[in-house]
């Protein structure tokens, strides 16, 4: 009995290794979905879920800039853009249209983490390179997924706060909307560190939309309730700007605060002389997705998941960011610089 089960598990193990080897050799041949029958210059489809927010416009800007570069290199001849206006059903229909029009690659920010799975499987079966970034779909039928790590975002922000307060102090925590995965993941990322530092006392937590006004309102009412606040652990850039404005309006002293690369927040940071830390969801994820799609079509191996490290802004490099501020919209995001060298490095990581 024992012997036979041992044998069974050994053979399963062997089978597993065999499958792994097979899988690996397949991955070496070409990236997922790529059949090698498509030739440059390629047509790229950019299936956006919603084009109105500033972050999306800037992201589209990086895609267009990258496509211009790729056109000069003779690798791309056309970029088609769709906007689903927030409707996942429309996004599916537009992806279907891209398949019908026989585009060579689709880059995608998904409106639903499940809904596009079947239409993407159709696209993948037709040899279309699919690069999914920012909002991801639960499916294996894409060439690559590209994103930063929200959990790490929360962990690093919390680490900054614990260090800034020397492990002891009273803080407010500002979250994005409840039930949104990005917001939940960032908060969860900070959990372990907060538990390990019981001297960091959480006075209150807020859940607001990622906008300045509601955050400012929420923090203002908390300021009345808490005369002594040592730090603000904010899990969103607009939330941080709202908190800084709330402190300022009340004439309260600014405290260490975490945030994102929203231009408004970075300018307040400098103006008020804050001790702060910020990271970002880089807009150039769009440009990187376009670049990756072409690399995959050219037969290069592309990892199934590219984890983009979070660029960090702190008091040592804030001036570099603000020096470039005039190149970005007033309500926009000052993203970290990027180039082909960085893209190649990201694709090389395993």
């Amino acid at each position, binding site marked *: 009995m024992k012997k036979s089960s041992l044998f069974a598990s050994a053979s399963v193990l062997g089978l597993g290794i065999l499958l792994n080897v097979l899988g690996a050799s397949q991955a070496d041949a070409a990236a997922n979905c790529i059949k090698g029958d498509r030739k440059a210059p390629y047509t790229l489809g950019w299936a956006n879920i919603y084009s109105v927010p500033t972050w999306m416009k800037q992201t589209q800007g990086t895609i267009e800039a990258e496509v211009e570069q790729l056109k000069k290199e003779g690798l791309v001849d056309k970029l088609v853009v*769709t906007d689903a206006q927030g409707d996942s059903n429309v996004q599916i229909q537009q992806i279907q249209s*891209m398949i019908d029009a026989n585009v060579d690659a689709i880059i995608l920010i998904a409106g639903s983490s499940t*809904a596009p799975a079947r239409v993407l499987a159709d696209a993948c079966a037709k040899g279309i390179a699919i690069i999914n970034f920012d909002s991801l779909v639960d499916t294996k039928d894409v060439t690559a997924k590209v994103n930063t790590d929200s959990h790490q975002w929360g962990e690093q922000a919390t680490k900054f706060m614990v260090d800034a307060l020397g492990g002891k102090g009273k803080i407010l925590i500002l979250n994005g909307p409840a039930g949104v995965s990005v917001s939940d993941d960032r908060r969860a990322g900070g959990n372990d560190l907060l538990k390990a530092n019981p001297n960091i006392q959480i006075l209150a937590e807020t859940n607001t939309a990622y906008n300045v006004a509601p955050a400012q309102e929420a923090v203002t009412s908390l300021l009345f309730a808490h005369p002594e606040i040592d730090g603000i652990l904010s899990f969103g850039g607009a939330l941080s700007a709202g908190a800084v404005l709330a402190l300022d309006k009340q004439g309260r002293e600014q405290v260490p605060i975490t945030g994102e690369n929203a231009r408004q927040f970075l300018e307040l940071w400098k103006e008020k002389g804050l001790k702060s830390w910020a990271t970002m969801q880089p807009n150039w994820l769009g440009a990187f997705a376009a670049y990756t799609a072409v690399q995959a079509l050219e037969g290069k191996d592309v990892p199934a998941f590219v984890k983009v490290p979070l660029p960090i802004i702190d008091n040592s490099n804030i001036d570099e960011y603000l020096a470039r501020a005039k190149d970005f919209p007033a309500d926009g995001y000052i993203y970290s610089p990027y180039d082909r060298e960085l893209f190649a490095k990201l694709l090389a990581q395993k």
Partner: protein
Amino acid sequence: MSNTTLSPPARSGSLYWAIQAKRNIGVRGLFLVVLGFMVAYGFLFHGLFTGSGFAKFTQSWFPLALVAMAQAILMLTGGISLAIGALVSLGAVLAATTITGPLGVAGGTALVCLAGLGIGAVTGIIVVRLRLPAIVVTLAGSFIIAGAALLVLPRPGGAMPPWLSDLLAGNTPAAFGVLVVVVLLWKLYLATPLGLSLYAAGENPVGAYRSGVPVDAARIAAYAISGLLCTGAGLFVAAQTGSGDPIIGNSFTLNSIAAAVLGGIGFLGGQGTMRGALAGSLLLSLMISVMFFLGFTPVAQYVAQGLIIIGAVAIPQFRMRAR
């Protein structure tokens, strides 16, 4: 605009067709616009004439066609529903959680249908018996139903059997076949006493009541059928996407009203035809694909969509004035 004299599919054929032709007058302009778009689409995308191309196109249209019918039935009785999208979401999450679960395909489908019929009927009873404004009741209902959908499935997930997805939303025009059946059933329903009462109850409820028409029953039945069409659309969306998403239906509320109004259905009840609403929904769906193939940028699409909708509604009005 439309003639409300309703004869069941008649023995005297010529009279039947004459009446049908008269009822088409208001939507003839829309039919022409839709036909124009169909031709343009076929011209731009030759794959439309292949089996799978036609199948994929009708699948994009199908859920919108069902919710347009769901809204049109209510508007014909003088009602309206703001809960259409929430019901689609509920149908989708119920399907994605029960069909691969303990209930199986038959049980899960039955549950989805019963949920739609039941919620629709309860809404209808509240609106009709308590004499409350439909817009308020269905707005409140949409919050409750959307909440229920989130309780069933808090985050996108669930599953549908792959064979069912391939059957309904694969490379065969099965969805179009279902739509044809639904339309035939609608024709049959119009020949029943309740169906005959539908237009009368919408156009002139008091007069109809005094003539012995079961006005309340006709209106409650309309709400129940409307609910069934919505959860049915939800089941299809679940099959089409292979999963459930608790907010997938949101945009259907507004689109269903747009399709019905585009199709010549009046807000005051008793005015318009189902074929108009179907044509309206077809136009909304066609526009998305045609503008993609024409290479419109997203901003140009916003503008063009608005212009086409205004145009399709305005053309018949201009023609009537010119007469």
